[in-house]
């Protein structure tokens, strides 16, 4: 008989097994007492959820991540369209961008903290910098991938270059921009937390630092779980947005029979 399992059931089973392993490891003092019991962490998590301060930290983290992401998307798309539209600029910037891209934004964290201090501004600026380059580079590729026939069509109907950029080039680049956003959204969250953890910026990163310095393992784990859930939500939201905006693209097309 074929085994038919609902994905949701399988997922729940997977989580249950993971929790069981966690509990077993904790009972066996596998990590030298640094791994609290599942129930302890759950209680702590419950406590956190009832705390208004916790929620303002969540708000700060999400707000900073979204602000940085939004700013880098706006700037990255504009810069990417400009760079991609002018061949000489594209060639001139290529090498520099390729060099800068693999540098993690954390490297410049000390510098940004020196300039802006341990503030929310510092955090979102770091997010902005971290997400900017991938978005710029993907947009450049997207602009370059615009079908020349589509471009010629627009030109032959007398559409001006600004209109062609807005109505042909940017939509053509959307699949590439979508990919960049899908990668950048979780990165924005991570950078925000790291900026709090290492740079003293507000939000869950700072809470994580407090829990760490106080040796408060249950809270540490509870925060990790919260961040995991937030990461999933970020990813889900970008996937949802991508599907909505790119429903016409090959990878999302549904054959509709009318």
């Amino acid at each position, binding site marked *: 008989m074929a085994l038919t399992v609902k994905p949701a059931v399988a997922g729940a089973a997977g989580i249950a097994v993971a929790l069981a392993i966690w509990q077993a490891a904790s009972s066996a003092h596998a990590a030298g007492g640094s791994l609290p019991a599942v129930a302890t962490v759950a209680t702590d998590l419950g406590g956190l959820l009832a705390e208004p301060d916790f929620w303002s930290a969540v708000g700060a983290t999400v707000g900073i991540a979204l602000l940085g992401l939004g700013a880098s998307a706006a700037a990255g798309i504009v810069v990417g369209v400009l760079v991609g539209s002018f061949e000489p600029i594209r060639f001139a910037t290529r090498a520099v961008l390729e060099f800068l891209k693999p540098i993690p934004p954390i490297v410049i964290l000390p510098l940004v903290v020196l300039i802006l201090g341990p503030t929310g501004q510092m955090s979102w600026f770091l997010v902005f910098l971290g997400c900017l380059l991938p978005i710029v580079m993907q947009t450049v590729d997207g602009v370059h991938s615009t*079908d020349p*026939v*589509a471009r*010629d*069509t*627009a*030109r*032959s*109907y*007398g*559409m*001006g270059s600004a*209109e062609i950029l807005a*109505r*042909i080039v940017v*939509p053509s680049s*959307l699949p590439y921009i979508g990919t960049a956003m899908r990668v950048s959204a979780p990165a924005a969250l991570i950078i925000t937390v790291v900026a709090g953890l290492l740079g003293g910026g507000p939000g869950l990163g700072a809470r994580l630092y407090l829990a760490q310095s106080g040796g408060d393992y249950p809270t540490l784990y509870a925060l990790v779980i919260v961040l995991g859930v937030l990461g999933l939500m970020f990813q889900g939201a970008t996937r949802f947005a991508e599907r909505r905006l790119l429903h*016409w*693209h090959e990878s999302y*097309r549904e*054959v*509709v029979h*009318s």
Partner: protein
Amino acid sequence: MTSPHLATTPLEGSLGGEPQGQRPARLDVVHLAKSYGTGDGAKKVIEDLTFSVSAREIVCIVGPSGIGKTTLLKCLAGLQPTSGGRAAIDGREISGPPPEMALVFQDYSRSLMPWLTVRKNVVLPLRHLRLPKAELKARCDEALEAVGLAHAENQFPWQLSGGMQQRVAIARALAYRPEILIMDEPFASVDAQTRFDLEDLCLKIREGFGMTILVVTHDIDEAVYLADRVVVLGSKPARVLRIVDVELPSPRDQIGTRALPEFAAQRTDVLSLIKRPA
């Protein structure tokens, strides 16, 4: 399955009656030459083409694949510079895309935007004309109706068959109301019945809008049926082998005209030009 036959009633109503105040335009091609690339690597595609399309005339261009028909049309549409000679509309030299011209691309599916519905694709080139909303809608309705696609206006191009996509591209050109309509193998992927309907639509557009029409086709019967004159291209690089005046009575009719002995004579004429190496 019956093909989605093209509506005739709206045509009678809108395209049929009085010519709508369009200024008939004339197209002149004088010693046009075109090479791709420069220097030693240059590839000469068009040697020397001279012909003209009078106002309200339908001219068909026939010639073997790869001879440079699309190349010629791109030059006429101002999308690429010529390497020699000139092309002019009513005496004004073409140096960029002329506003009074519409081009239906051979690559119809790539010329439709996949993120826009059929209707929005048709409206796309009209946006910068800043027409009143009602006129925009009227033009779009009429054009879609004319190609028999009113029912598909909210679908996306990739949900349609090749022939339907081709008709969307034609509708977009009609809605633009050009003085000169240029089409690059526009009926290549439609079934025989729709093809006849579209050919007749082409004749009706000329009557209704007073358009000047230049059509590239592989199909010699089609060229003879549609055209007032057929420009036969040949040799490499391309030259005009001959310009054949089609002398068939108007109005033309798919069954009657094609049955005429003159029709057979004309198509044999053109065919022998193409078959025989120049």
